[in-house]
């Protein structure tokens, strides 16, 4: 049977993708950002799953205002990076897992999640920047990725609690899939940032720190945070953090934090990152070389 082995969350700042693409990772401004992911990249190399369910949001690229799905699941074999106005990012196409996606679609709809099924989908920086941060620049991404796009541009996004329940339903569906696959769930976006208006540039490190702490130790209560608190404390775009609850909701009560990284400044956004491992799942097939992550 398939199983969820780990979950992680990471901000998906477009400037971080641009810095990678333009070879600026050693510049003083960006060096600490990319160094902060060195441990995580080793961990990923040692714990590459078969499939990632990657929770992200589109930023007026694949979706206009014509049709705004709350949750859109990527069903296709292949997802090309979007042209966001400066040409597509020079990263590999993303290969999906249509059969697992079909199973997730059927399970989740019967489990009362009102999905939109996306058979054609281009993916923007919200999905590709996390892949760059965790995998670097391979010729092909080393595993399959099922995109799960969440509506966060137009208010209201789904509640944190709904996102957490969706994560739990993804776990049930994965555990009912009768092929031996390892699956990670990633939450992306956030942390505190506001990109609009006279309050643009807001960063709230105490809020972000508390969010990371509670995501680790008190996720059920944290998922009940009302939208107004994200808007007021973490900035109008900080509400992307609801997507992290999908990831956390997909993990068991036994999952434990193995890595955390937080950095300001990164463009207009506080960059946050956290990794959780399942006690059983993550340990199988782990690289035990010296210097690699436990």
């Amino acid at each position, binding site marked *: 049977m398939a199983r969820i082995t780990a979950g992680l969350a990471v901000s998906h700042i477009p400037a971080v993708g641009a810095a990678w693409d333009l070879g600026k990772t050693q510049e003083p401004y960006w060096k600490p950002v990319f160094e902060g992911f060195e441990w995580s990249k080793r961990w990923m190399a040692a714990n590459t799953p078969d499939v990632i369910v990657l929770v992200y949001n589109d930023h007026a690229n694949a979706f206009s*205002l014509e049709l705004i799905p709350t949750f859109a699941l990527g069903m296709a074999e292949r997802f090309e990076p979007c042209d966001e106005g400066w040409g597509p990012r020079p990263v590999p196409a993303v290969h999906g897992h249509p059969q697992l996606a079909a199973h997730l679609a059927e399970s989740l709809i019967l489990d009362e999640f009102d999905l939109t099924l996306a058979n054609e989908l281009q993916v923007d920086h919200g999905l590709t920047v996390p892949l760059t941060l965790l995998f670097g620049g391979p010729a092909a991404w080393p595993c399959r990725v099922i995109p799960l796009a969440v509506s966060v541009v137009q208010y209201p996004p789904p509640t944190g609690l709904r996102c957490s329940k969706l994560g739990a339903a993804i776990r049930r569906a994965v555990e009912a899939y009768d092929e031996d696959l390892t699956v990670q769930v990633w939450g992306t976006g956030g942390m505190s940032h506001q990109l*609009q208006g006279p309050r643009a540039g807001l960063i709230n490190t105490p809020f972000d720190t508390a969010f990371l702490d509670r995501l680790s130790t008190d996720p059920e209560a944290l998922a009940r945070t009302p939208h107004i608190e994200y808007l007021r404390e973490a900035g109008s775009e900080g509400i992307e953090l609801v997507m992290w609850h999908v990831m956390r909701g997909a993990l068991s009560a036994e999952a434990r934090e193995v890595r955390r990284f937080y950095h300001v400044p990164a463009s207009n956004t506080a960059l946050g990152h956290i990794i959780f491992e399942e006690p059983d799942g993550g340990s199988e097939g782990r690289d035990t070389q010296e210097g690699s992550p436990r």
Partner: protein
Amino acid sequence: MADARPPRTKPYADIPGTIVFDAEQARKGYHLNQFCMSLMQAPNRERFKADERAYLDEWPLTEDQKQAVLERDLNRCMQLGGNIYFLAKIGATDGLSFQYMAASMTGMTQEDYAAMMAAGGRSPEGNRFTGERG
């Protein structure tokens, strides 16, 4: 008919310097944002750059919306229903960085804005509720 109704009280109306892009804003700004989306295509960018007014006139925008675009007044665009992710396509067409656009909305120079971000960003202190700084 429907528009005679007084606006609902929004719990997020008291956040300073922030316009939440809710269904009401989305309705007001639908064509403004779809105009911005059209700038994703290179031929449209060329036509817009060649004659901004003429290109804008092809869209069912209000005169206020057109003026706000022509003046690159992003705050006004957002009051009139624009969303920042859509509006950013105008800046991309102009060849401007997002940081330039962000600074322009705060009334700061790009240098001051960049310095603020490098120093840890804008503090939430005094920026949570309208008028809390007296």
